[in-house]
């Protein structure tokens, strides 16, 4: 057994605190938008300056000029504001983002992560990830525990070029929720039916309880 992607998002969603400003990366992290947070209220911030966006627009209700950083046609919640890129990244570098949730290729026990260039590629996909990683108060990663060929993505040290060093707070995979502690990943939660030995078998560095 393991978590589905919406369940991974759901598990990370439980870590979001009332009042937080939350930035979601492209791909899997956008699932966090759909998590029911109960009576907790968070504000979603997108790199393109949309602050306080809501759910994806219903078919036929999309505004061609209103997208989030993943190009999704979102809506605006009451109280939303729109700023330009300079101010949007001023909010990021200025430490106003409580957490950024990013996808990643690799996560390391020393808190480094790598999500901008795959092996052998000449180009890269940085977008806003380096600004967010360096400056958000917390960095949550959402990724598959292993690559398709079984190679672990949770490692002692990254093998790919890093996005930022020593910044990762929490990592959620289909197997559980983990925190890097320097030399190991500490288990915060396990998906139903997953044992710590399952995690150890899928991880390239020590895993602690």
């Amino acid at each position, binding site marked *: 057994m393991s978590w589905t992607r919406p369940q991974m998002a759901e598990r990370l969603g439980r870590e979001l605190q009332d009042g937080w400003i939350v930035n979601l990366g*492209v791909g899997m992290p956008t699932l966090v938008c759909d998590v029911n947070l109960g009576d907790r209220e968070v504000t979603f911030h997108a790199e393109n300056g949309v602050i306080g966006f809501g759910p994806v627009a219903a078919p036929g209700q999309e505004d061609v*000029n209103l997208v989030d950083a993943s190009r999704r046609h979102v809506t605006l919640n009451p109280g939303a504001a729109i*700023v*330009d890129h300079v101010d*949007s*990244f001023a909010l990021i570098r200025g430490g106003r983002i409580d957490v950024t949730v990013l996808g990643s290729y690799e996560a390391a026990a020393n808190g480094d992560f790598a999500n901008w260039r795959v092996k052998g590629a000449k180009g890269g*996909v940085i977008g806003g990830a380096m600004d967010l990683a360096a400056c958000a108060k917390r960095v949550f990663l959402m990724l598959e525990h292993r690559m398709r060929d079984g190679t672990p993505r949770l490692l002692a040290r990254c093998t790919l070029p890093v996005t930022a060093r020593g910044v990762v707070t929490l990592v959620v995979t289909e197997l559980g929720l983990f925190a890097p502690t320097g030399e190991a990943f500490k288990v915060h939660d396990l998906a139903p039916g997953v044992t710590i030995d399952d995690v150890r078998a899928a991880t390239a560095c020590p895993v602690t309880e």
Partner: protein
Amino acid sequence: MARRSKVFADFDAAVAGIPDGATIAFGGFALPGMPLNLTAALLRQGARRLTCIGNTTGGAHKPRNPDIGMLVENGQVAKVICSFTAAPRASDQLPFTPFYERGEVEAEIVPQGTLAERLRAAGAGIPAFYTPTAVGTELAEGRETRIINGREVLLEYALHADVALLRAWRADAAGNLRFRRAQRNFAPAMALAAKLVIVEVEEPVLPAGAIDADDVHVPGILVHRLVVIPPAPDGLWPSLPARKEAAS
């Protein structure tokens, strides 16, 4: 009071005279704010050896729109300065990528916030600044860092442009601009950074004063040329992506 008109009759007239070797900043983040018509005019105009600044070279999504990637395919580009030089999804490929891999076009990859701030700095008379972004990464290798207030920060230089191509919702005759929703993105920073600012506008140009001074996003003193976008098919307008659900 006589005011020299900033309104140009068509896109070709507005981009005439952009020389070979120019550095051009392209507004837009995803579709909102992309200067589709001015980019199409630049493709016809044919200036070469351009340096193109934009969030991405574009082209990972269908339908294809005029973008930096098309200028690359048209042999007009020497260098791009972008926050993406590959497609966000590994399964996609940017039209730009094979040209880059063959070494036909140079690329400088810049974190998105650093890109915006370098443009702003250029227009703000700030020659360089320090930022925590990209410290400890490959991008910082061999470059100047300092410890300021106990934190390592990286020196970044202002990024100047000869020309900015932008798309706005409204303009008045004074060149004041107003954007809708996420159209604004890089436009204010690029308008500051560029010597010549050319804007395609979605609505007919309003008389000076029709945009309240409090509501102006980019002041007209930064804007040189305006072109009103004609209705489709003569003008290019962003469209919503095709629905995934098949009609049953």
